[in-house]
């Protein structure tokens, strides 16, 4: 205890005087006290960090129930012939399998709910237990009246599975357009699993701390709606940590593997590969030290100032392949868009600079940090060629060869409240040279866009597959406005004064 001031909590005289000094200034008491926390134990440069451990592992709790009418059924859809017990056994088994695959806890009601009283009791339970999402499986058309009640009273994201035979267009008209509700009128269970993925993705966003490596600030804020924490740290932190990073066995192994898996190596030499993997290991250390799960860095500024011998492109590719978002140019919402594909679709993408190709009316999406496991984290990686970073002729970047003829989705958060979603098809991989720009350069024929010059957004994330419906579902569930590039050109042709 500080005898002089009777402050029961003081540790010693020096600390006590520091507190009093701050307090007597009359400003920023807590700022002075709390913004200088004790340093945590950072991993050593020789520590091997399992990259998979850096991905957040949130608890995801979903409450589920069947909704039915009192039995036995007589007329009315799904009809007297509908095998209620059989279907409920089937859907319960599917739900368990999906939950196991996704790592979700499901609290399923033991008996189907079939009356106002059971619905009211369940709503009360939901309000008390606050699950992260709700799944209802409809077993009769007359249960639709309960959907709005559940959604409005709990305000918890709600997935409604209406197997064919339990809904007409009229039933879907209201709930299926409602924010916070995702209605699946189908027999396709994979759509229900996608709905569960949406809930898991939101929890992943919430549990993510993204390192924003730029400028000279150190602070932490939270992104609206998604709940992702943004920890800004000074840009120099990275190059200083990089300088400390020796070529360890891990670095050597990673570099050798990087070169071995390439179908061709054009510019980079062995030292370039070692440096690239030093950047990768540095990034892992930094993420672990800061308790972070993703990063976005002012890489171009760092390379421009010649602070590092290599841009982080290849290092970022490896992180992306492991489900760790690594964004370029400190574009925070570019990184959030990368997170979207990683967390919802279980696959990496790459944020791109969009180039309209006006002869073929296509879009060339170009950058140097595409993931290789573009078909999914657990799928075979795409072929790549080892190149250098084209703008600087430094280091290692991958030219990932995207499969021609395959559908792709372009996704971009315009801030936390709006998402641009477009789709198209890969028509080719553009070579550099003859083109300039970035190493992974994919030519895309866009769906539903008359003129590629009208494509909205910059640093949109390209991801393999047509995921428009799933992304739209996520947006509706969490109140994010969806925008598509205009189908018809809004620009006038001809000369203007």
């Amino acid at each position, binding site marked *: 205890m500080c005898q002089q001031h009777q402050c029961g909590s*003081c540790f010693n005289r020096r600390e006590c005087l520091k*507190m009093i000094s701050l307090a007597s200034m009359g400003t920023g*008491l807590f*700022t002075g006290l709390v913004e200088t926390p*004790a340093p945590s134990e950072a991993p050593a440069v020789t520590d091997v960090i399992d990259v998979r451990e850096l991905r957040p592992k949130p608890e995801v709790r979903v409450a589920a129930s069947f909704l039915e009418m009192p039995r036995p059924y007589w007329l009315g859809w799904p009809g007297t012939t509908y095998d209620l017990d059989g279907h409920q056994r089937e859907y319960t088994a599917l739900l368990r399998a999906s939950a196991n695959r996704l790592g979700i806890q499901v609290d399923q009601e033991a008996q189907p709910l079939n009356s106002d009283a059971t619905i009211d009791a369940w709503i009360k339970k939901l309000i008390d237990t606050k699950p992260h999402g709700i799944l209802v499986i409809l077993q009769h058309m007359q249960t639709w009246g309960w959907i709005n009640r559940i959604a409005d009273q709990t305000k918890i994201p709600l997935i409604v599975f209406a197997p064919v035979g339990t809904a007409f267009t009229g039933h879907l008209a209201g709930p299926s357009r409602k924010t916070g509700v995702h209605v699946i009128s189908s027999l396709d269970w994979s759509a229900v699993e996608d709905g569960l993925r949406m809930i898991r993705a939101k929890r992943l966003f919430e549990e993510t701390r993204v390192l924003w490596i730029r400028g000279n600030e150190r*602070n*932490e804020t939270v992104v609206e709606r998604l709940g992702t924490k943004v920890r800004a740290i000074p840009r120099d932190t990275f190059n200083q940590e990089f300088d400390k990073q020796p070529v360890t066995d891990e670095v050597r192994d990673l570099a050798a593997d990087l070169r071995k898996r390439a179908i061709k190596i054009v510019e980079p030499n062995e030292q370039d590969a070692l440096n690239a993997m030093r950047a990768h290991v540095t990034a892992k250390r930094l993420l672990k030290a800061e308790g972070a799960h993703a990063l976005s860095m002012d890489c171009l500024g760092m390379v421009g100032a010649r602070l590092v011998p290599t841009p982080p492109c290849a290092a970022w590719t490896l992180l992306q392949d492991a489900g760790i978002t690594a964004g370029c140019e400190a574009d925070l919402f570019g990184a959030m868009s990368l997170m979207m594909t990683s967390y919802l679709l279980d696959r990496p993408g790459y944020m791109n600079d969009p180039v309209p190709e006006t002869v073929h009316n296509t879009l060339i999406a170009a950058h140097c940090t595409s993931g290789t496991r573009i078909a999914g984290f657990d799928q075979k990686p795409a072929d790549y060629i080892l190149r250098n970073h084209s703008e600087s002729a430094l280091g290692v970047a991958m030219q990932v060869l995207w499969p021609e003829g395959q559908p792709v989705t372009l996704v971009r958060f315009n801030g936390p409240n709006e998402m641009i979603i477009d789709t198209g098809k890969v028509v080719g991989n553009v070579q550099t040279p003859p083109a300039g720009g970035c190493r992974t350069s994919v030519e895309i024929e866009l769906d539903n866009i008359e003129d590629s010059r009208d494509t909205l957004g910059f640093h949109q994330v390209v991801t393999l597959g047509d995921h428009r419906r799933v992304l739209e579902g996520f947006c509706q569930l969490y109140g994010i406005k969806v925008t598509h590039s205009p189908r018809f050109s809004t620009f006038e042709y001809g000369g203007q004064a």
Partner: protein
Amino acid sequence: MSRAMYLLIGISTLACCCGALGAETVGLSSPGLPPSQFHANGVLAEDWGTLTVTLTGDGLAPGEQRLEAVALENVVPAARWSADFGQIRLQVTAYKAPVYPQGMDVLEVQLEETGGEPRSVTLNLQPSAQLGVGLSTARLGNRVVLSIPLETQRFLETRDWGYVIDTTPMPGWAKPEGDCDPGFANIRAGMGGIPIRYRFRVEKGGKVQVVLGLCESFYGQAGIRPLLCEVEGARPLLVDPVARWGQHKPGALLFTASDDDADGWVTITIRPVPGARDRNPILNVVWVFPTNVRLNLNKVISGALNDQARYYVDVGGKKDQPLLLTEGLRFPLELAAGEKRTLTFYVACAGGQAVVPELTAWTPESLFRAAREVWTGWAQR
């Protein structure tokens, strides 16, 4: 030293230094963000000016006041200012929420009737700067420096109808051709892509018929200024006035509206269309009819049914009006005996803006959760 210990020491030290009446000033902070200052006279100081919290009403006079630094849930540092106004106790709790990117201060104002009798009081927020006050935000220039969350807005003094967002009135802008209501000549324009929004008082959960009158006079070509019309309870409608009716031709759109959120208001919003060449929305006339009036849109356009309308708005005309009854931030409240009531406000802090309530997902609960998580994570570094 742990974060909790720092907080304990901070609070103890303040009490030591400042005696029974508490602190003179308490800083509101969030990791890495510049602090705001809460002063002992109920004044929050920001980089744009100050905001003073006062209470007025019969027989109310400020008595003892106290400011102290507290840690909410033992984690989030905050300022707590309390003042007795006779039989009403006013308590303001302020903390900085770590809203990306610059943070935002949150004020929770609690009023408690302590005399055992119902009382009418008015809570006043007095900004030092001249602000443009709307229903949900107060702006200094284009900067939103104060916002009034949806749950607090219902306490504002309002008219039965009016615009919610202050867009640009442009009387005589349109040149409507043919027999039409004179209101078609006037518009409001949402310059810079600001939506045009009006609100109309209706029975809670009630239905009405809304007719929007539009006339495009600037462009002669279709596709340049499409408009997205949103009427509460009706399906949104995308309309291109030139494509549908032609340049200078007055047109009308009918919506069956309903008070979907049961707040006693029907809201209409005209938004720009993303990607359109001109993204400044316009609106000429609004009619709101009871559901039992049979509508012929040609007659509506001509103005022949104006008398049967529950509300008729010559948008941008002389009788157009804001929804807010007074320009000040006044919140008249009827407190029952012993009642406690809490109103929340968001305030812009250094370099930032307050969020726009209609566009944000932030709630008082999620803001506090964010503050708690950030402080907890910061301490674990």
